[in-house]
């Protein structure tokens, strides 16, 4: 294992770099896109059920199919990393917009009513009251999306661009365990690290949560 790493550290590092890029860019884009979509699901109640259903269907499309099929729709090259980024962004949006809607819906009406009574207009109430209160739920969804994105990137290796997944296909083709094991370990570590970072962010931005027990667990 160490032997393999020292002989191939450049390949492994390049794969890791690509993996981080391919997994995290969709998270950022997806998060920004999901907030307004999820809000629409709360603002217009009739929109909630179609939103949940569409998200469910989008999430059930196999990643491999999406990776292969996006170039046909987008007109990109089959080996363009953009395909992976767009596909994972779709999954992120499918997962997060529902979580955002659920989080905002779960805000205690008493809280929103008090905010209204204190003179908050809709936009400020959303940004200053509802969003912060819904944040633990939204960030729990973000953790799920981040961790599953990181493990999904490797499927892209079947079409030639998959970060650490390339170590899997390489090991599989050469019938060689080391790259596969290194790929799995790095992928799991990366997911754990990203998860930890989000937990720390959550702690920093929701200081009130530490003073009450029995809040929702992820």
């Amino acid at each position, binding site marked *: 294992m160490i032997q393999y790493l020292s002989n191939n550290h450049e390949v492994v590092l390049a794969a890791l770099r690509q993996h981080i890029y391919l997994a995290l860019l969709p998270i950022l884009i997806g998060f920004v896109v999901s907030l307004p979509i999820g809000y629409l699901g709360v603002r217009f109640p009739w929109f909630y059920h179609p939103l949940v259903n569409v998200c469910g269907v989008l999430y*059930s499309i*196999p990643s491999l199919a999406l990776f292969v099929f996006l170039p046909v729709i987008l007109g990109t090259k089959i080996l363009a990393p953009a395909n992976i980024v767009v596909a994972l962004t779709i999954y992120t949006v499918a997962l997060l917009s529902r979580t955002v809607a659920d989080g905002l819906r779960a805000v205690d009406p008493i809280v929103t009513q008090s905010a209204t009574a204190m003179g908050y207009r809709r936009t400020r109430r959303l940004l200053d009251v509802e969003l912060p209160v819904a944040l633990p739920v939204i960030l729990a969804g973000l953790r799920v999306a981040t961790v599953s994105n990181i493990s*999904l990137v490797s*499927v892209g290796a*079947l079409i030639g661009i998959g970060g650490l997944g390339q*170590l*899997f296909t390489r090991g599989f083709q050469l019938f060689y365990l080391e790259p596969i094991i290194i790929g799995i370990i790095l*992928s*799991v570590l990366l997911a754990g690290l990203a998860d930890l970072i989000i937990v720390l962010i959550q702690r920093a931005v929701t200081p009130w949560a530490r003073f009450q027990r029995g809040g929702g667990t992820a």
Partner: protein
Amino acid sequence: MNLSYLFDAAHWDLSAPGGFPQLILAHLGYVALALLIGTVIALPVGLWIGHTGRGSFIAINSGNAGRSLPTLGLLMLMVTLLGLGLTPVLIALTVLVIPPILTSAYAGMRSLDHRVVDAAKGMGMRPWQVLFKVEVPMALPVLMSGFRSAALQVVATATVAAAVGLSGLGRLLIDGLAVNDYSRVLAGAIVVAVLAVLLDLLLALVQRWIVSPGLSGRAQPRSRRATT
């Protein structure tokens, strides 16, 4: 968008090797086996952890740990270790379905109202009666939602079986890609997505059927229905 492969009647012939019916059957076979094995392993463990409260650390963290394991890597590792065949595919898919079932069984048991369990004990129910007549039925809604998300995931992921030479709907994706036949890839993607939606609907019906009406709110008058 070329749907010619999907709507070619020859591909829907029941006896055609590599036609949709056979691929769907193989695909559902992997899904059913993985769900069955996964449930047999994860359900008792999850119920036990939820019932006793011991080892909850495992139940809470297995969800995230399972998600972070790349299925493709695990599959290729298993194939490299065990050789080609059904076993490595089933191991990889079972590892995928265990965490959601385990976590939801635990969460379902934990979400119970303790007064109900106490009342059941007070009425003289034996521990196993409390478990199977009170706790499990009441945990069913949460448990089923975990089972449904496991089913959705495994339907989509079973396509990777084709990457190591097995059958299933992934064949359309892998083979279509290999010969640049996008019509075939599209057909595979659509059939898998439709299959996933149908399976989820079916499981929703099952859930409606097995969850007591007193729990799902269907037995209550409209005005008293819970708003959650």
